[in-house]
């Protein structure tokens, strides 16, 4: 394994970390297994590919993806809260619908490349900063090789800080309270259903932004980009919260981001060793492993040092 593979895994892990922040909101805070993800992730990619191909600004494409994702999550919320459909089914309905929506957005093609166009990873600004191409004689010693990673990490940090700030606001508290104890939200004279819808909308904005970065990184959008993304995000959240969330002074959002990078690195390593036909099988086993290990009380292994504890 070479350094390039490692950087590739870090790039991908950091992109998935944006998605994991979203899944942290639904799965961890709201306790809502949101399958919209497998549709809203490629939604971000589809919107991005379409906008960039139409000559749009790649940063604007990210903003548009966020709006599209917000809307998708909002609809899942409305289906669940207003039409009273179970959480899993609401997500499945949206995911199914989004497949066609994405198909339409990219002009009824199974894939849409953005090669030769400016992306957030490759534009006049990054070319000035990181240079035009890697120096041949010193691979991986120039800043150029890290341009994707640096760009993604900047996005990631900004989004994480925004999410942390939101979670500390009054509205963020209401979201936390909703996942913790909906009865309290009702007695506060607040419509808990609307709080849930808001949470789903925000979460899917993160997922779509991740999808947008993914598409710009790969320089192509594939209709199948969403497959298995929910699993990746969930694994990231579970690994992050169960291992790093227990350590004092590490915020849950940071833990989730680390979880995403580690899980992606593990999957990349594992997949490099196996033939393509059993890739999904390996992924499934890895995910199962994460779930089983997630049940182990890490606190009993003396990792835990959280103040107050979280007995229930």
């Amino acid at each position: 394994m070479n350094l390039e593979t490692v950087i590739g895994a870090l790039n991908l892990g950091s992109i998935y970390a944006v998605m994991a922040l979203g899944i942290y909101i639904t799965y961890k805070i709201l306790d809502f297994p949101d399958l919209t993800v497998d549709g809203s992730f490629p939604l971000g990619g589809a919107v991005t590919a379409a906008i960039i191909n139409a000559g749009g600004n790649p940063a604007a494409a990210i903003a548009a993806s966020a709006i599209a994702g917000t809307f998708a999550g909002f609809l899942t919320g409305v289906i669940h809260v207003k039409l009273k459909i179970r959480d899993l089914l609401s997500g499945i309905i949206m995911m199914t619908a989004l497949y066609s929506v994405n198909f339409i957005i990219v002009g009824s093609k199974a894939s849409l490349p953005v090669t030769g166009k400016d992306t957030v990873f490759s534009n006049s600004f990054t070319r000035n900063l990181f240079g035009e191409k890697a120096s041949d004689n010193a691979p991986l010693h120039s800043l150029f090789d890290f341009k994707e990673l640096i760009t993604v990490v900047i996005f990631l940090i900004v989004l994480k800080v925004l999410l942390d700030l939101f979670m500390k606001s009054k509205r963020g508290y209401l979201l936390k309270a909703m996942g913790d104890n909906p009865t309290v939200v009702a007695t506060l004279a607040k419509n808990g259903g609307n709080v849930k819808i808001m949470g789903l909308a925000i979460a899917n904005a993160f997922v779509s932004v991740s999808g947008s970065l993914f598409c710009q990184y790969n320089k192509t959008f594939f209709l199948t980009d969403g497959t298995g993304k929910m699993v990746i995000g969930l694994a990231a959240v579970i690994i992050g919260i169960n291992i790093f969330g227990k350590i004092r002074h590490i915020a849950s959002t940071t833990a989730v981001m680390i979880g995403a990078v580690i899980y992606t690195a593990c999957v990349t390593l594992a997949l490099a060793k196996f033939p393509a036909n059993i890739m999904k099988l390996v992924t499934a086993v890895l995910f199962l492993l994460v779930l089983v290990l997630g049940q182990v009380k890490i606190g009993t292994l003396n990792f835990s040092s959280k103040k107050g504890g979280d007995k229930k």
Partner: protein
Amino acid sequence: MIQLCDICKKFNSGTVNETVLFNNFNFKVNKGDFISVIGSNGSGKTTMLNIICGTIGADSGKVIIGGHDMTHKPDYERYKKIGRVYQNPALGTCGDMNVLENMSLADNKGKRFGFSSGVNKKKLDYYREMLGTLGLGLEDKMFVKVGSLSGGQRQAMSLLMSVMTPIECLILDEHTAALDPKTSEIIMRITDKIVKERGLTALMVTHNLRYAVEYGNRLVMMHEGKCIMDHAGKEKENLDTQALLKTFEDISVELGN
């Protein structure tokens, strides 16, 4: 203040387990009343509170609160004027959030939950002082998760939180039942103090006959979805636990026949 008119409520309608609980049930809570509600298990006390608060709907009948017909209004609309403490101490607070965060949430009831900071550090001392009056040591636990507090501490917090902002009516469902005798005594005294100081209308379900006799100005006994005793004022003052126990026994004898 609160009026239940011709309330009917069945559970498991149309199945073999169908239970008719309320059949044209009527109940009126006057402004300023502090009512103790007693009655055997399953007599419909919690269901009555749930119907008042909109936690569950009645099959038919009307719920009028403060002169407004609230029958078809959702629970969160009704809680604008109502505070509620549950039997289970965990229901009134957020266990994963700390004491300060819980107090801040409650303090913001009736206001906008916007993007400003969730906790106001300037109010820390105010909250500490308020918690200090409970005498349960909560003022030193501002940054402790509520989930790791004792049941009594949690229930005391639920009580404070439910009356932190201006409400008109306080609903208490066996709110001392899960506590040890000493703590339950403390909580009961605080409840009485708050209700009197704030001039609240209160509806308190209790299994403790002594509390029912000692506190409040009106006493109601429920049985199989009906009010079988309703004493107010002087009449209530003359009641004692012995007399109430006797009534309970009479009911059981009637059931036995």
